[in-house]
């Protein structure tokens, strides 16, 4: 009985410790960090250096004046008389008058004047007090975009978390190999022209070992072109080395798989 309890406790301790060792990468993922937004801190003074701000200020002043003007026109008795001089104001007309007044006061009219300002200038009209609201909005938008492009970002996510190569690091490596790979032009267009090569690299990007993953195809009857293609890919790797790999995180990229696909180039 004691033995069983002891075994059970030991077993549970091992499970918990294993989970503690292995699971951090899983724990990391759910942390939903808000996207980083860079904000430039500037000194606010009477004379700002924000372009178009003076112009915007003028527009705001103009709008303000317009508002004042509208308010001043609110109850000119003559205007009322002009509309219906002899008529006894009926309840309907009164409503109409009220409507006219409200129209004049309507801020929509003011907004239409703001619309006349160019798109760029309009950007300058934002209220600094609303930065927080904008940040919140962008957060929501980013989250929506991430949700929408979930399928697309999976590979990026894979590259970033699992492979550990950033897009720029990957692009640098790709660009280097593009320049070294002379594609044999006599390949059949309608065949599978994908060669997968697994590499073992040194810290400086020199290739220690290269292995063609589908090497069976090299000697398959009717697949003679594959040998030519695979050799051209190997030549590209040799010509390019040392490969442009990141200076840090050797453990992440010491094993690398390059998928050479000539279909896209040859089909045009």
């Amino acid at each position, binding site marked *: 009985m004691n033995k069983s309890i002891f075994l059970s406790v030991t077993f549970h301790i091992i499970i918990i410790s294993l989970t503690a060792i*292995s699971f951090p990468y899983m724990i990391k993922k759910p942390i939903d960090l808000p996207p980083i937004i860079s904000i430039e801190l500037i000194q606010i003074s009477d004379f700002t250096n924000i372009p178009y701000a003076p112009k915007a200020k003028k527009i705001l002043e103009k709008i303000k004046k317009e508002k004042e003007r509208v308010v001043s026109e609110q109850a000119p008795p003559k205007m009322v008389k002009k509309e219906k001089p002899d008529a006894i104001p009926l309840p309907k007309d009164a409503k109409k008058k009220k409507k006219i007044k409200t129209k004049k006061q309507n801020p929509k009219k003011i907004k239409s004047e703001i619309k006349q300002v160019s798109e760029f200038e309009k950007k300058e009209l934002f209220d600094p007090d609303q930065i927080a609201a904008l940040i919140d909005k962008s957060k929501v938008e980013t989250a929506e975009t991430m949700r929408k492009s979930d399928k697309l970002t999976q590979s990026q996510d894979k*590259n970033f978390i699992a492979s550990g190569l950033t897009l720029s690091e990957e692009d640098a490596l790709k660009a280097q190999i593009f320049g070294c790979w*002379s594609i044999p032009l006599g390949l059949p267009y309608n065949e599978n022209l994908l060669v997968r090569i697994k590499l073992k690299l040194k810290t400086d990007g020199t290739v220690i070992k290269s292995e063609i993953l589908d090497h069976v195809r090299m000697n398959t009857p009717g697949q003679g072109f594959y*040998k030519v293609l695979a050799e051209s890919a190997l030549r590209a790797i040799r010509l390019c080395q040392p490969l442009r790999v990141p200076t840090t995180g050797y453990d*992440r990229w010491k094993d690398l798989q390059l998928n050479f696909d000539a279909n896209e180039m040859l089909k045009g």
Partner: protein
Amino acid sequence: MKNVLFLIFLFVVFFAKSSFALIEIDITRGNLNPLPVAVSPLYVESKSSEVLKELEAGSEISKIIETNLLRSGLFNPLEKDSFVQKPDIAHLKPRFEDWKLIKAQALITGKVKITDDKLRVEFRLWDVLAAKEIMALAFTTVPDNWRRVAHIITDKIYERLTGEEGYFDTRIIYVSEKGPKNRRIKKLAIMDQDGANTKYLTLGNELVLTPRFNPTNQMVTYMSYFRNLPRVYLLDIETGVQEVVGEFPGMTFAPRFSPDGKKIIMSFAKDGNSDIFTMNLETRVVERITEHPAIDTSPSYSPNGKYICFNSDRSGYQQIYTMRSDGSNVKRITFGQGIYGTPVWSPRGDLIAFTKMYKNRFYIGVMRIDGSGERLLTENYYQEAPSWSPNGRVLIFYRETKSGSQGEGFSATLWSIDLTGYNERLIETPTDGSDPSWSSLLSK
């Protein structure tokens, strides 16, 4: 025990998962620059009295290989002056670092020996970057055949490095032209694909037109006017034996072999209308393929023999059509501006080459077999009659220059162009030339 096994299982599961996944990078682009190749002069082994002959053969063979590779547009043979290693040592064991230094990616070395009036040529192809031999072959032949050996070696190198069959050990038959434009003497001539070894097959007494190679052997069909009557001939290049296939009254055009070489297809006027017919070369039975009031000409079979492309003015203008080999399912495939003619189906089966006339300029182009993807490769004052190399990568055609009212300044020359449209080259011939036709590989 079970607990221990379970523990091991958990270890494997968790630790395997926690290791880094393999980075996969897709390389979908490369460059199409010519491959830098070093063609080392062929090393002469013996010290016999034949050494001078051997020396010449050795350097000439390497020169021909180099020229062939350069003319293909896919290789860039490097300057021999930059070679560090001597040919004899390079042939035994190249010092790859030396060849890498001059940016060579492939190296060709070889050895020549003449014994008992037999020429033995050995060559090796090395992958400089992989530092290994990727091909080694030897040929023994009569010394006079040294040019063909050079072409065969180029074919082998080309095939090994591009994955595509070569086209260097081939011949071109064409109409050799001489004299003023209004009194041209036209002879049938044959030469190697690089313009060497020209031989004349007819005397020039009769007008010869449209020679075409049989894709399966060294037989040629051509047209000739004998006493103003068009005749279709068959000529065996190897034996020189010539025979008349038939006399066809009226306008007869462009006889061409079927892919199996058993039939010829041509157009001729019957009952006042030009249509397409085939003739079985064994039975000499003529079969009508098209029957239309329009003029149907220039038929050419697809490589599998199931389809025929031809041109016809049934739409009002001369356009290209395709149909089944029995004449059914006729489809118009060209709808572009201009007049289309001389369609020729590629030996690969994927493209049709044609001549197009638009705004008084002539173009040689290619399109897919459904007429899509039209690409005009070259443009000139007058050019026509494209013929495919056996691997379907290069076209040969002829070009004429504008002449004065008296025919002065007129010339007809042979040109080749590859499918990229960038590698256009003049093929030098002793006289003017027109109507070229490319043979299949001689060594096949």
